[in-house]
Each structure stands twice: as C-alpha cells, then as structure tokens.
C-alpha cells in the first residue's frame, strides 16, 4: 500500500498532552521541535550580544561598555552562537528529519534523546548566570585561551562546567544520530543510496563524538590549573600555554566542520528539489564529505601560525589546510552542476541555498587566503578573520538552517509559510549580511585587531557601516519569526508534496508528518541521494 494515497491521518493516540509532552518527550519530532525553538531563542540571545558589540564599535572610544564587559560580550556571543544556536539547530533538524528520510521508527535511543536536549537549558543557564557572579562572565574569547582563562574569576568555572554539560549533551545526541543511521534505515535504503543530509549528519556526529571529549579534557586542565595546583599551561611549573592551543584547536577545527557539514547536507537536498534534477555526482559528494571528516583532524595548527611553530610544521598545516579546499570545491562544483540546465524555480529555500553557495564560497576563499602561513602572520587576530568565519557561519550555517526550515516547514506543520515574507527575509538578510561583514575584510587588511572595544580613528567609517548593517540584519530576523508564528496558525494548508521536485522519503508521508512516522519499516527501492523509486508498506500513525 502506498502511503501517498492518504490525505490526512487521525492524530496519534499515544501522544501525551500539555507540559508532559515536552518535558518527558520520547518522540523525535517533539524533541526536534524543542531543539529548534531553543536554538532560535539562543540565536536571539547571541544576536543581542552581537548588537551590543556593534553598538559599542559604532564609534571609536568607549560608549556603553568597559573593556572587561566588552570581552565578556564577545566571549559569550561566540559560545552561545556555537553551542547554543547552531549545533542544537542542526541536531534538531537531524532529529526531526532523519527518521522520516531513512524510514526509521524514531531515533535509536528515544529517552536519551530527551536527555540530550534537556541538558542544553541548564548549560546555557550556567553560561548566562556567569554574567552576575563576581568578576563577571568568561572574558577570554570563545577559545578560552590559557593563561587568560586560568586567571579569570568564577565566571570561568561556570563556563567550564557548562561546557562539560554541553559535551555530554552533544556526545549523546551524536551517538543517537550515528546509531539511527547505521542501524535503523528501512530495507532498501542502502548507505550509498541514502540522502546526503543523512551522510552529512553521520559524519558530523562522528566528528562530535571524536572531538567534544578533547574539549572536555582541555577545559578540565584549565580547571585543575585554576584550582588544583597543576601547571599544564604554565611554563614555571613545567607546562606550556601553547599546549592549550593545540588541544583546543584539535577540537576547534573539526568543530568548524560540525557546523558546516550539515549545511552541505541540507543544500544537497534543496538544490536538486528546486532544480528538478538528481544531485550531480552523489558518490563524489559522499567521498568528499568523508574525506573532510578525515582531513579536518590534520589541520588544526593553522590557527597557530604566529605561535612560533617550526617551519616544517607551518608548511605541513598550510598544505593540509589547502587540501581541504579540494573536497569542498568538489561539493560546490556538484551543486552548480546540479543546477546546470535544470528547470529551476526560486522559492525561499532555494534562494537561501543559492545564497549559501555564493557566500560560503567567499568565506571558503578567504579561508584559503588565511591558510597561507606567510599571509596569516599579517592577518592573524584581525577583523579579516572575523569576516572570514562569519561568512562561513552566518551565510553558511545560518542560511542553510533557514533554507532547511522553510523547506521542511510544510512537512513539519502541515501549513505553508508566507512566500512573500520568506523572499523578503532572504533578500533583506543577504543585503544586510554583506553590509555588515564585507567591510570587515577591509578593516582586517588595514590592521584592525579583533576583540577590542575601541579602535583607531581611521577605522571609523567601515565600523559604522558594519554596525548599521548588523542592526538591520538583526531586525530582519523578526520577519522570519513573524512568518513562522503567523504560518503556524494561519498558513495555507500544505499539500503532501508541496515541492514538485521533492522525491525523498519524507515527501511520501502525509502532511503534516504523522506522530509516529514508520511504526513499520517500509520496503524501499531507492536511487541515489534518497530518491524513492518505489515504496511498499510502511505503516504510520
């Protein structure tokens, strides 16, 4: 029996109601929704911190914040955006969509899934609480470099324990994703057939399991240096502050891919749908993703070119970093080739996906620039670096998240978002994103250091442009919020297959997706990238 014939199904009887549904959730869709809403709230909190930073930097001199508080703002902005907004948003999407896309009954460990989510609010509470303890929040930058992190007040301890909790949360979430993909695919959904989003989530989860414990180790050493007399990062005791940077960036660089690979996965689903063509070079896409998963462990010291490494090490990390441009280039090429001669339409998800390709590539290219050790010596710690990673994280990760939410919103809620508002959101974000971050390239090249509340007069104009852009960009995100809130109640009823070109498994389910998608696994005949050719069985409800 093909599910495709069913218009609507009665809602599930096992569904708990009220607050228990969310607090005690074991349903992957409920937990996914919790993740997504939490991530959006944290996106707003982190965004407000960013606007505080941009307000202070609107003019040279100190206006609103003392340097100490300014450093706390930059630190918490980074930590909240990375661990509170982007990572949970991707985990939430994986929770929501993976079981639908690979034909699984739910996530492999449904109860642990709930714990993964509910550890996030306490961790973020500890982080935010640190603003009000004596000495204020951590002010060492999101990288928490020693010896600065060893010297700060108790806000740093709260940050350390928050990171421990975040680590537990994301490792459990990642184990859940890996096991679900390995063990719970429906018959016929082979590994080399499954959607790129599943592949990207798999490699991302593997990276999380591999590097979050290393970060936990690094901050634990900071903790023992602070309170238990060790000298890991103090030369006078036989340690070395550079050691911290090595351990941190062994985590930190793969972390970059933890925030980028899921974005690649999303774009690899959206582009084929709106180009109405199969993904070009699926197999090469899988290999590119996997090789990024391997290479990302071998490039960490490109963040440390100014620490006095031997020339051999500099050369190794420089070339290894450049090597990553190859699989990334393969991906960009494949996306463009997918669109080539496609029958394209430009709904909001597609716009964000194309915006992603364009701007992420700019961020990638400035990354290649930074990978050149000789150039990096000039640009290290400058606004050029800030411009670079905001191109890959905001126009990269965030744009892909918007693309994904618009793309799957009909399947999640049964209603369409308002297309005109979506288009406005995209063009608004695209414009003001570039107004905010493009001038930062120039600021960096001209020598403006990052993480300072005050700057030399000649940097004023570009900073003012960036600050205006940031406030307008922030305002634009309210368009998104309004669109979502309005559409949840009043949006047009969505068809089962709202996108003509959507042919992965989730579009074979009724809209909105039933509470239990596949209580019985369907028998599938699948082509590359999860394109369903034929389907039998697969009860839901």
């Amino acid at each position, binding site marked *: 029996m093909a599910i495709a014939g069913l218009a609507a199904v009665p809602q599930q009887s*096992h569904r708990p109601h009220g607050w*228990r549904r969310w*607090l*005690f959730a*074991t*349903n992957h869709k409920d937990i996914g929704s919790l993740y997504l809403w939490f991530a959006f709230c944290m996106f707003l909190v982190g965004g407000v911190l960013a606007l505080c930073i941009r307000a202070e930097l609107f003019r040279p001199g100190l206006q609103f914040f003392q340097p100490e508080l300014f450093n706390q703002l930059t630190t918490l902005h980074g930590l909240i955006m990375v661990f509170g907004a982007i990572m949970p948003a991707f985990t939430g999407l994986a929770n929501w969509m993976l079981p639908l896309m690979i034909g*699984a*009954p*739910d996530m*492999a*460990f*449904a*109860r*642990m899934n709930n714990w993964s989510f*509910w550890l996030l*609010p*306490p961790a973020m509470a*500890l982080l935010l*609480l640190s603003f009000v303890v004596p000495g204020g929040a951590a002010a060492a930058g999101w990288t928490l470099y020693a010896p600065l992190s060893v010297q700060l007040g*108790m806000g740093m*301890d*709260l940050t*350390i*324990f928050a990171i421990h*909790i975040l680590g*537990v949360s994301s*490792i459990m979430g990642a*184990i*859940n994703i*890996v*096991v679900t993909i*390995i*063990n*719970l695919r429906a018959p016929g959904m082979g590994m080399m057939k499954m959607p790129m989003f599943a592949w990207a989530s798999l490699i991302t989860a593997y990276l999380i*399991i*591999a*590097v979050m*414990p*290393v970060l936990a*180790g*690094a901050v634990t*050493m900071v903790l023992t240096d*602070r*309170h*238990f*007399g*060790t*000298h*890991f990062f103090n*030369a*006078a*005791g*036989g*340690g*070395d502050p550079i*050691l911290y940077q*090595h*351990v941190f960036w*062994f985590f930190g660089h793969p972390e970059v891919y933890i925030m980028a690979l899921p974005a690649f996965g999303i774009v690899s689903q959206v582009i084929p749908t709106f180009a109405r063509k199969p993904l070009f070079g699926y197999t090469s896409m899988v290999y590119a993703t996997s090789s990024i998963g391997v290479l990302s462990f071998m490039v960490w010291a490109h963040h440390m070119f100014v620490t006095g490494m031997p020339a051999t090490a500099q050369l190794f990390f420089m070339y290894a970093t450049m090597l990553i441009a190859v699989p990334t280039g393969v991906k960009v090429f494949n996306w463009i080739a997918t669109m080539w001669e496609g029958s394209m339409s430009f709904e909001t998800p597609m716009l964000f996906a194309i915006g992603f390709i364009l701007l992420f590539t700019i961020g990638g290219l400035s990354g290649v620039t930074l990978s050149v050790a000789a150039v990096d010596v000039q640009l290290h710690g400058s606004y050029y670096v800030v411009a670079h990673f905001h191109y890959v994280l905001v126009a990269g990760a965030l744009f892909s998240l918007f693309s994904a939410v618009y793309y799957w919103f009909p399947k999640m809620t049964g209603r369409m978002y308002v297309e005109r508002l979506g288009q406005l959101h995209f063009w608004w974000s695209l414009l003001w994103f570039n107004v905010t971050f493009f001038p930062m390239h120039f600021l960096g090249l001209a020598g403006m250091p990052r993480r300072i509340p005050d700057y030399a007069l000649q940097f004023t104009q570009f900073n003012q442009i960036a600050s205006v852009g940031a406030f307008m960009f922030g305002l634009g995100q309210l368009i998104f919020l309004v669109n979502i809130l309005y559409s949840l109640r009043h949006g047009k009823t969505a068809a089962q297959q709202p996108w003509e070109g959507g042919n992965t498994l989730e579009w074979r389910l009724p809209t909105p997706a039933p509470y239990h998608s596949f209580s*019985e696994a369907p028998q599938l005949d699948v082509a590359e990238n999860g394109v369903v050719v034929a389907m039998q069985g697969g009860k839901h409800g």
Partner: protein
Amino acid sequence: MALLDEHGQAHYFVPAPSHWPVLGAVALFCLGLGAAFAVNGMLLGWWVLALGGLILLRMLFGWFGDVIGESVGGRYHGQEALSFRWGMGWFIFSEVMLFGAFFAALFWVRQVALPTLGSLDYKLLYPDFSASWPLQTAPAAGPAYQAMEAWGLPALNTLILLSSAVSLTWAHWGLLLGRRAQLKLGLLITIVLGLGFLCLQAIEYHHAWTAQQLTLSAGGYGMTFYMLTGLHGLHVLLGSAILLVVWLRVLRGHFDQQHHFAFEAAAWYWHFVDVVWLLLFVFVYCL
C-alpha cells in the same frame, strides 16, 4: 510501548514518555553550579553538589531500573540489541578521545615543553633547571620530589588488571556455555580484583603525596601522573560499579546465552580500561 502489527510481530521499541531525563538535567545543573561554587571556596557549593549527586543517583537507579525491566519483559529484540552495542562502542570511542587529550598533554610536556625549558634560551629564567625526565623539580623550583617506581605497586597493579581481564573472559565463557556458577564466580573475582587495584592505587597515592612530595603541583611529572592515573582510577571505579550491577543481576537470574548485552557492555568497558592501563604503565611509569 512496543508497537505490534497485526501478526503480533514486535517492532523497534520506542519507550513511553519518561521523567528520568529531565531529572538527570536537574542533577547535572546542580552538579555544575555546586562545583563552580565549591571550587571557589563557598560552603553552599558542597551542599548543591551533594544534592546534584543524590538526584543523579536516583535518576540512574530509576532509568536503569526501567531499562532492565523492559529487557527482562522481552521488549528488546535483535535490532534493539544491535543499537545498544553500537551505542556502547561509540561511547567507548569518546572515552578513548578523552584519554587522548591527557596523553597528548603528557607527550607535549615531555617532548616539547621540557627540552624548551631546559634549552639555553631559558637559562636566564630558570638557571638551575635541568631537563631530565622524570623531573626532579618544577622549573620555578618547588620542593624536590621523587618519581614513581614502576616495578613496585604499579607492576602488581598491572598484574591484577590483566588477571581481572582473564577472570572476566572466563566468566563470559561460563555465560555462553550456560555454566552459571562459573559466571558468578568469574564476575566476583573480577570485581574483587578491580577493588583491590583501587586500594593499592590509594596506598600508592598516599605514599607519593606524603613521602615522595609528589603533588599535583609538582611540575610536569606530578600533574600528568595524577591526572592520567586519576582519570583511569575513576574509570576503574565506574567499571567495578557496572560489573557489580551485572553480578547482582546474574544472581537474580538475568541473562542467557543469547540476551546479555549488559554483560558484554561491561566487559567491553573493562577491557578498554585495561588497555588504557597498559598504555599508562608504559608511558607514565616505565618510560
């Protein structure tokens, strides 16, 4: 609720809503908050820490109680068992990476920081420092201390852990062949050996701290020694606790030749802890 189709066939088990995860989140919040207060010398912190620990224990008992109940109630089949095995494997991988961070610190301190600090560049800062390993003092000379001796208690502890791996495997054979007495005895021996290891380690620590002046602040040697062996000791403690639970379940008649994931998981964990010790013995004590 195990979902059954019209043929009464069991599907992948998706548990009913549960309040344990949220309780666990509250526990970790208390632990984090309490620890941050406690390390800053606030008495209140210890109380919050203790509260968090109690809540966590309650949660673990309740949660694992549910899981064991479901297992004994026949809710798990082949696919669930495979999920558990994959999950445990990936968890151990994450533990490997955690130890990796501390091993990296050890190798860095010995191979990079030590020669640098002993080099001519640093003679002005630390004129009396000589770069030998194990260090006899920290560069900014603290009290001199003695390094650990590999062929005393540590060698005995190596023997103990290796024997415990043998007794555990013997117990595993007992389980697979249906010899319950062998299973019970093998597990008991393993647990006793694990606890014996911990006792000897405590004696070793006490002696090092008092008689050898080897403290956490005793330079690159002291800190890597205590952090690595301490982290390992915590894992032995956890492994012993897991084995104890498995043993108690065996006494109650749980597990048969086919269904014994908990036993396997405990065994994998124990062997992992064992291998880490061998690395520690080589790199911390011998070399």
